[in-house]
């Protein structure tokens, strides 16, 4: 099973809107590893602003395996990650 790559925008707008909290939430995922395997294989990469915020997209922006999630929060990102892991399994 491959690694799940999650890029979290660490630009100014997204940091203000809570991207650091998302990074920490993802880091906490292995704690629920007994429920879902694959949670240890997530790579979180903070990335600089890719200008989406300047095009009126609201942050924080997160890219789960390249798929862009605007206005991300812990809820949506964690769900997207778990979906990707499940999709990889089938």
């Amino acid at each position: 099973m491959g690694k799940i790559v999650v890029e979290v925008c660490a630009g100014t707008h997204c940091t203000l809107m809570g991207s650091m909290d998302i990074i920490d939430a993802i880091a906490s995922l292995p704690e629920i590893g007994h429920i879902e395997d694959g949670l240890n294989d997530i790579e979180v990469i903070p990335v600089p602003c890719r200008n989406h915020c300047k095009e009126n997209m609201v942050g924080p922006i997160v890219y789960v395996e390249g798929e862009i999630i605007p206005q991300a929060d812990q809820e949506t990102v964690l769900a997207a990650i778990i979906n990707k892991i499940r999709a990889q399994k089938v």
Partner: protein
Amino acid sequence: MRGIFTPITKIRRQVFSEVAKFAFEHDIEGDDFGYFYESAYRIIPGEEPLYRDSVFKERAIIRERIRMAMGLPMRPTGTHQPLTEGMQDTADGKKRLDLPLVNVIPFACEKCPTDRIQVSDNCRKCLAHPCTAVCPVKAVSIGKNAAVIDQDKCIKCGRCITACPYHAILRFGRPCAEACGADAIDSDELGRAVINQEKCVACGLCIVTCPFAAISDKSEIFQVITAIRRGKRVAAIIAPSFVGQFGPLATPGKIVSGIRKLGLSHVIEVGWGADYGSMQEADEFIVHVPHDKKFLGTSCCPSWAMFARNVQPETSDCIALSHTPMVAAAKKVKELSPGTLVVFIGPCVAKKLEALEDEVRPYVDFVITYEELMGMFSAKEIELSDMEEDTLGTLASRDGRGYAVAGGVAEALVNSIKRRQPGREVPFMKADNLRDCHKMLRLAKAGKADGYLLEGMACPGGCVGGPGTLSLIPRAGSAVKAFAASSPYLSADDNPML
């Protein structure tokens, strides 16, 4: 809510960037202030409420938050007053901030019940029902479907809570009052929370705790920006907890560049002021403890120092005399560059209160938090990761930088005392919330801390846990430690700039 980004954090930060955007881009002389009528619609768009029962109420709350973010008082709820009243006068780049600093927005408060013990639907109305047996005042009875607590009789001893085999009995109170270690949250005649300003030491924890975003402090971002726009020379002094606060790509050097790009002339480490404070307090300890001061309480956290003097006046002479490191650093700037305005940037709401004191006013012109600064970066579209690395104006020692994390102040002081008196044992106690601080003070009064150093802090984890921070505490703590380790000097005594 610490550690989880909620709509409350979001609203607060959106308000800061709205105000900062206006201050940077709009006409601050004319009557452009109508902008703020639209702000509420930008933050709460549409016709459906986002969080509460009414979209109108949500916007009304935003409006009062905007006023406070501009340093203005809230408006009375019962009489007419335009939103923009007083805004023009605050645009002169002079200090405006006034008491009360921390405010409950009355109509935003949901009147959470005060301390109450209640049966939840976990109750299975069991045969044993030990809850009734253990209650010393016969307040618990078994009703039709579940145990019932007679609130008039209940003395809140909590024994039924421990006795229940289903964990069905809960105690809950007002989140704001639970967060307040100074017991400064009272109720008004309508049952809404109101802050007892006599007791409030502005730790700011209720602001980040209230789940309904009903509490806010006032800000000085508007005055800082207008001062810059009016061509005044403004220097920043930044607290040791700044590292790691602005995202994983914002190195300390890039943060310094970003601040200068906002138009501030210099960026000085308050850690230097901490070094200065360590030297003074080490001397105070050696000269006075335990002969004429039974113990020495640290003075770098203004909430703790105010609290200690308020709640236990009889030991107030044992709290170190020096002001906080903020004041030492600000004095240095004023000495080197008279006429320069000084803005302190930190995690702290209490420093806003300290800066209103008569002895501090001449040195510290403005106080803003990291969150407020981030709002300024965002409004000015400054991307910290794109910045060049710049250097801090004055360097602090490892120990001075360590002030930001609970335990760091005591460590710094012990090191400085031992430098002066090698072999001296320095026993110490520490507490990082006001309730524990109170316990520590009581022990000290009872003579259990003679000869001790007491490190008091109002925020859990120390300054890195302050209400104006953006980063989670553990992450911020390791960033601070790494930065501290990079200092060329170990302790205050090695710092050539003192």
